């Protein structure tokens, strides 16, 4: 079972990377980019086959390691 953990900075936390990308896109001539947020994605291949349990364990991993919950929030999505 694959679990995809998406980690983003919490709202309101400064995102220097997103700001820089936004700026670079504008410089490259892309218009209409109103906001950019940058985050991390971690794809986990789990031995677990039960979706419920796979999700629970991915969430636990995110809480304990993958996300820094002081400044980041995460979502977990299951795939294939």
């Amino acid at each position: 079972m694959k679990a995809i953990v998406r980690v983003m900075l919490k709202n309101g936390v400064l995102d220097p990377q997103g700001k820089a990308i936004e700026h670079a896109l504008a410089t490259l001539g892309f218009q209409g980019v109103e906001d950019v947020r940058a985050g991390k994605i971690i794809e986990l291949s789990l031995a677990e086959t039960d979706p419920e349990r796979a999700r629970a364990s991915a969430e636990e991993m995110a809480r304990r390691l993958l996300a820094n919950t002081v400044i980041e929030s995460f979502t977990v999505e299951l795939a294939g």
Partner: protein
Amino acid sequence: MKAGIVVFPGINRERDMAIALTAASGARPRMIWHQERDLAGLDLVVLPGGFSHGDYLRCGAMAARAPVMEAVRDFAARGGYVLGVCNGFQILTEAGLLPGALLRNASLRFLSMDCHLRVERTDTAFAGHYQKHAVFRAPMAHGDGNYFADAATLDRLEGEGLVGFRYAMPDGAITPEANRNGSQRNIAGIYSANLRVLGLMPHPEDLVDPLMGGTDGKPIFDALAATFAPRSRAA
């Protein structure tokens, strides 16, 4: 030698580079703002180290798309000499002027320490003042110096003799232990096909004065100065 140093926002080793170039050639390099496009009259364009645009997204990614890089590309296409060190090397690969990419160090940590480099060929404008297979010391200071290219590209680089410098032990042995950042085939520096564009990860410009612990990096700048000496004398 008329050298120009490109200043991208966030670059921080432009002063170090200017010191090394001035010491070798006697002439102060011109500082070129990243939005300029005029490289006329230059013998050498240098992309120095630092964190251009914060190195956010990918190291060198945003700098590679700056206006000055179009000029650098033309300059190189016309046979101009270009030296990219550290962030400069990353920018050259991002701009497609050199093949491959520089990934995060295998240790996932910033590495700031002296390393040893083995000179793979000496018949270039950059390395002419070293002995073949000489080993010299250079400080490195990077988080993303792990050179990567696919196998075909690596074979081509090797086949055409475009690998300029490799991480080595002090005795010249090419070992995994010497390869702190995890680069493929211990590659620390590569040339373009015409040998006029060099990308190099460590910082020879920070070791050009005995006061700072040695002059191991000085031959690179001396060689460049010598390459362009006749012209600058005429000028």
